[in-house]
């Protein structure tokens, strides 16, 4: 199993191919539906000139996401004595971020997106153009993945609600599989082509 440490270099990413299992360590950010919409509207459409109220979040995200990783996840969290911890933290379905993901990869210089179910052609293209991969976590394996979250460093935009906020977390040995690489290959595309051909046979 390949070990990846954040920040990840473009060379390391270009060396990965679909089907390869990886184990990821370092500081990453969660972000899902509300977070992606917000990033596009607040940072990207404004050409990197967000309103003053959002500048702190922008700076924090730029630090984490440059050569970094975003995780499509809405966790179950617990707060004890003022400290947050992750209780359950599996991936959510990524395809909902398809309209936004490519622009976020480009703008922030992301190297990997973690989620489940894979993404579409626009994201695959961005992976090629900017040197990024899609990492598939095991859907539903929430208690196990939460154990790889060693520390909650910060939370931004709590107003979005617990599942939708940006959680900045330090992970160790987070397990995933490369299912979209930076060479234009998507395991999801391959499997769908095969299953659709089989379906045609079954319905003949």
């Amino acid at each position, binding site marked *: 199993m390949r070990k990846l440490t954040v920040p990840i270099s473009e060379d390391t990413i270009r060396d990965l191919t679909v089907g390869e299992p990886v184990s990821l360590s370092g500081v990453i950010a969660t972000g899902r539906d509300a977070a992606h919409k917000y990033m596009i509207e607040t940072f990207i459409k404004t050409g990197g000139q967000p309103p003053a109220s959002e500048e702190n979040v922008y700076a924090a995200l730029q630090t984490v996401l440059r050569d970094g990783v975003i995780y499509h996840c809405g966790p179950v969290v617990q707060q004890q004595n003022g400290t947050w911890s992750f209780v359950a933290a599996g991936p959510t379905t990524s395809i909902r971020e398809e309209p936004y993901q490519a622009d976020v990869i480009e703008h922030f210089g992301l190297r990997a997106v973690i989620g489940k179910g894979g993404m579409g052609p626009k994201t695959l293209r961005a992976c090629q153009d900017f040197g990024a991969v899609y990492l598939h976590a095991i859907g539903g394996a929430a208690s196990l993945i939460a154990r790889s979250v060693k520390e909650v460093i910060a939370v931004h935009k709590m107003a979005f609600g617990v599942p939708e906020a940006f959680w900045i977390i330090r992970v160790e040995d987070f397990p995933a599989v490369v299912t979209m690489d930076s060479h234009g290959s998507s395991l999801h595309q391959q*499997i769908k082509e095969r299953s659709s051909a089989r379906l045609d046979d079954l319905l003949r």
Partner: protein
Amino acid sequence: MTQDLTDAFVELIRRASTQLPADMEQAIRDARENEEPGSAAQGALDTIIQNVELARANATPICQDTGTPIFEIHYPPGVSTRQLADQIRRACAIATERAYLRPNAVNSLTGENSGDNTGIDFPTMHFTEWDDDGIQVDLLLKGGGCENVSTQYKLPDAGLGAGRDLEGVRRVVLDAVNQAQGLGCAPGVLGIAVGGDRGASYIKSKQQLLRPLEDNNSEPELAALEEQILAEGNELGIGPMGFGGSTTLLGVKIGTMHRLPASYFVSIAYMCWANRRASMRIVGEDISYA
């Protein structure tokens, strides 16, 4: 009935969220043996099995998406369903505080998360009076990812060559499985309803998910179709998480309803491998869980 069952409902939620039913776990373990050693499919199932063990041991949610809580309640004459509904709502809030449930109820108008899993028509509750003198509560935690790939067909469907018969049902269901790919967290279980109006049909399809995997359909034609769709669905090779592999489905359950002459709906409730269901029976002071 003046008994306050709030604590019992909290315990039911805890069990549903943190303990995968034994039949589901066994099916996943069996599936693991059928995948190629060292494959991504087998790796996914290994991770799932480890996660199921960990969640049970630590009483943490199997999946962070603790879903829509769907309560099916059967009660004897004389029980106040309004009181039960209040207790269920209170139990959802307590279970959220204890992190058995993620805050999962979002106001569709304002986008605000209520923070405690209660809201407009949330959680889902269906009450049915029966002759039995006990109360039976079945709870399903229905995740959002698999809900998004659940679907409904209106037969005939020319594109799929599906007419208004069981062969038509077979064709649209296999299409739904192919459309879903791994997005519903395969390997999944299908609850299928044939007939009804659109709304009733969807409810019925979810109720099918409460049947244990080993439950055989009492209708021989439907039992045969359940087995056929299970086998053919697996032939599609979508595999765990859509990584490719021999296990795409773990179970298929079909129910039928009367329909209008004009309508023939087939509703498919796709349930992820984390088919979280738990039951509770209350007779007098006795409360038992299953």
